[in-house]
């Protein structure tokens, strides 16, 4: 971690960040805007005006950390990082042990077997059920990783003949392990069919995003170190995840919050460097001259791809097809699926999930999801695809929000790809 971020001093209040902020777009109230939050952080740091902790906490906790404001800020104000820092500070001031969010977090951080039952536990927390809020769907079958490490051998026949073996680790993240285990199975199957050997260590756990975004830096660091260690001993060149939020946490936040003096600094940095989201990984394979296997769907269909806010394309990425132009690196895989037609979304709004945001501010979250479905309705697709656990939650949970969208399937693009390879 570098010196304390003081980029809030760069804000000139121009207002450019207002319309891109999901919570401002819904509330139209600057208290829920990036510019307002930065202003509160400035005042809080200068101590010129006494601010109520609970009120500042409200402004900070309603940020989804989607990063849209950061991307367009002409003065490089690192709004997301500033908000996380403020939450770390507030976390020390406030006693949140009994809040709904804290209980969910506790469930995620089961120290002994961090991953195994964690997400299942959230789904079954009695308090949450009592509130009758289905923000976590029931698990679809048994968890992907259960009792041991797994190794999947590359399918060398189907992978364009002889070539060097590529070995990758698979980082599932909680949700794709416990709630949607099929997505993990589909990811691994797609890798194997493209000639990649996959190692899945049992001891991997939560990526830590729910913790750092709640200001709990010590749990975040514990989890980061645990993950780095889980993959450390293995001779693998890449670690792949199919969850956009996990890759955001590992690629962006791990380097930001680990100091040179921290235990496991180099392991964590090494893990962070090796980890790629699944679409970037396929682009790496393509660059190595590997022909990504093409599949075909039995029945032609069309879809929109909801681009997760946390989906990071490689910095040097330049679209080389129509589909890549629409949705970035994931477009490569759409190109490989015969029978799948991609429809554009007009604004690429946020889905409203934001991880813990959805748990803490369910009503606001739903309003943002409604806006998302308005644009989906305009495209009128047969399927909704995405590649992030949080987005999967909100899009599935709220698909009934508009009459026209009732029952529309929500899937991870990798599952459609895996299906097309089978057929």
């Amino acid at each position: 971690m570098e010196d304390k971020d003081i980029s809030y001093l760069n804000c000139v209040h121009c207002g450019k960040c207002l319309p891109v902020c999901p919570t401002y777009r819904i509330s139209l109230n600057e208290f829920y805007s990036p510019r307002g939050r930065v202003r509160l952080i400035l005042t809080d740091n200068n101590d010129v005006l006494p601010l109520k902790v609970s009120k500042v906490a409200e402004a900070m906790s309603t940020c989804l950390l989607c990063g849209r404001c950061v991307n367009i800020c002409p003065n490089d104000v690192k709004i997301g990082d500033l908000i996380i820092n403020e939450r770390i500070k507030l976390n020390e001031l406030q006693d949140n042990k009994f809040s709904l969010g804290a209980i969910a977090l506790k469930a995620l951080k089961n120290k002994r077997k961090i991953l195994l039952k964690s997400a299942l536990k959230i789904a079954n927390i009695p308090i949450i059920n009592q509130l009758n809020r289905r923000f976590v769907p029931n698990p679809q079958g048994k968890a992907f990783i259960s009792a041991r490490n797994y190794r999947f051998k590359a399918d060398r026949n189907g992978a364009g003949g002889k070539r060097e073996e590529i070995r990758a680790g698979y980082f599932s993240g909680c949700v794709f392990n416990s709630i949607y285990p099929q997505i993990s199975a589909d990811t691994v199957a797609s890798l194997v069919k493209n000639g990649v050997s996959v190692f899945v260590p049992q001891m991997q756990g939560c990526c830590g995003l729910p913790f750092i975004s709640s200001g709990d830096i010590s749990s975040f660091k514990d989890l980061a170190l645990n993950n780095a260690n889980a993959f450390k001993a293995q001779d693998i060149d890449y670690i792949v995840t199919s969850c956009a939020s996990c890759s955001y946490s590992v690629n962006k936040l791990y380097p930001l919050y680990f100091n040179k003096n921290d235990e496991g600094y180099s392991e964590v940095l090494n893990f962070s460097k090796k980890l790629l989201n699944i679409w970037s990984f396929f682009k790496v394979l393509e660059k190595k001259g590997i022909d990504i296997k093409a599949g075909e769907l039995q029945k032609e269909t069309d879809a929109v791809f909801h681009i997760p806010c946390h989906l990071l394309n490689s910095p040097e990425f330049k679209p080389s097809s129509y589909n890549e132009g629409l949705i970035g690196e994931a477009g490569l895989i759409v190109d490989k699926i015969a029978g799948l037609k991609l429809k554009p979304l007009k604004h690429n709004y946020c889905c409203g999930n934001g991880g813990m945001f959805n748990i803490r501010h369910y009503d606001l979250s739903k309003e943002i999801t409604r806006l998302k479905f308005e644009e989906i309705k305009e495209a009128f697709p047969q399927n909704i695809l995405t590649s992030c656990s949080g987005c999967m939650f909100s899009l599935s949970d709220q698909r009934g929000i508009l009459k026209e969208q009732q029952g529309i399937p929500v899937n991870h693009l990798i599952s459609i790809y895996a299906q097309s390879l089978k057929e």
Partner: protein
Amino acid sequence: MNQKLIKEFEELLGKNRVLSEAEELLCYSYDATSKEFMPDVVVFPLNSNEISNIVKLCLKYNTPVVGRGSGSGFSGGSLPLKGGVVVSFTKMNHILEIDEENMFVTVEPGVINADLKSYLAEKGYFYPPDPASYEFSTIGGNVAECSGGPSAVKYGVTKDYVAALELITGDGEIINTGSKSVKDVSGYNLTQLMVGSEGTLGLFSKITLKFLSNPEANSLILVSFDDIGNGFNAAISLLKLRNRPSMLEFMDKSSIESVKSYFKSDIIKIEGAFLFIIEADGSRLEVGESVAEYEKILKEFSPVFLFSSGSEEEKRVIMEARKAISPSLRKYGDLKINNDIAVPINKIIEMLSFIEGISKTYNVPIINFGHFGDGNIHVNIMLNKDDADMVKRGEKAKFEILKKTAEAGGSLSGEHGIGLEKKEFMKLKYNDYYMNILKNIKKVFDPRNIINPGKIF
């Protein structure tokens, strides 16, 4: 008294449309200037009757009332100088009616300029006024400040598009001005009086705007010169054409530097000291012809760099860079004195060389860019907040520049307004008699001086 007023607002609008906690009010204490004033309460009306009732309550409690859109102004127009009530128009953001036969659209003041543009563009229409803030500033704010942008050189500014207004006066009365007829001389032209009145005469509740047909195509040319005289003469030649450019923006060396990262080096390499961004629009055929003609003329003035953009991506990059100049200047100083003077086009060179001299005399960096085609120059004096002596020198530099502007027959503000930022300079241009006329006009609409007091004069 304050608590009572807040309670009455809550009864009128409901609790969720009234903000009164300090943390919330702090988020309404600023705009894009570096000045700040805390309001006592922020309210969110949904229609003209509510605004009327808000003003009447303010009269009852003798409290100032200030309208606010996105708070992106450069002259302090939406700042509650004397505290009181901020009326946020953000929830009045509906397009009420489109009249395609007469080509007028009626909107609520909180509609974002860009949202109106894209709504009309989908139907094949075009709303030209394009302040650099158009992606986030509101139509209400645009009308109050008479905003303009690069397209002014061909299409004019906000005042050229406002046909009719509904507004609430300082008495809390609702009045309607103007009409959809092109010809309308029944009484004084109050509509045009309201445009650019900086929110001091009333609060707008409905705005009827004229629109045009969308030009079929457009194309951009980037051209730069080492010699300012050559650049100037080249630009003048383009303005004389029957098919004059729809944009003629200039950037000096420092402003080019401030946004250089936007021009990805593999697309566009910028050289030279003085850069123009030129746009041609019209039918495909016209655009092709104009670009060829512009290029031919520009080449006669020995440019050091000439680039015609082919792709949408290049055009987007160029315009993103142009829009980013103003906020990006922060690297030259954390306190910006932002002047948007406008002078007759043939005075631009004289003005720029005068400004260069002032920059040396007072030892402050001054960065210039703006709308060459309409003589509107953004003169940015960049200072360090903590350096009191430098701030003083900056203020003196500003005075000299505005004085020279008035002498050159120019305007103290092309598009930002006077607001708080320039009111003490009005006397450079107007005498007491003239200023009294302005003050008396305000009295007619706002006898108790509660609507945005302390602005302009």
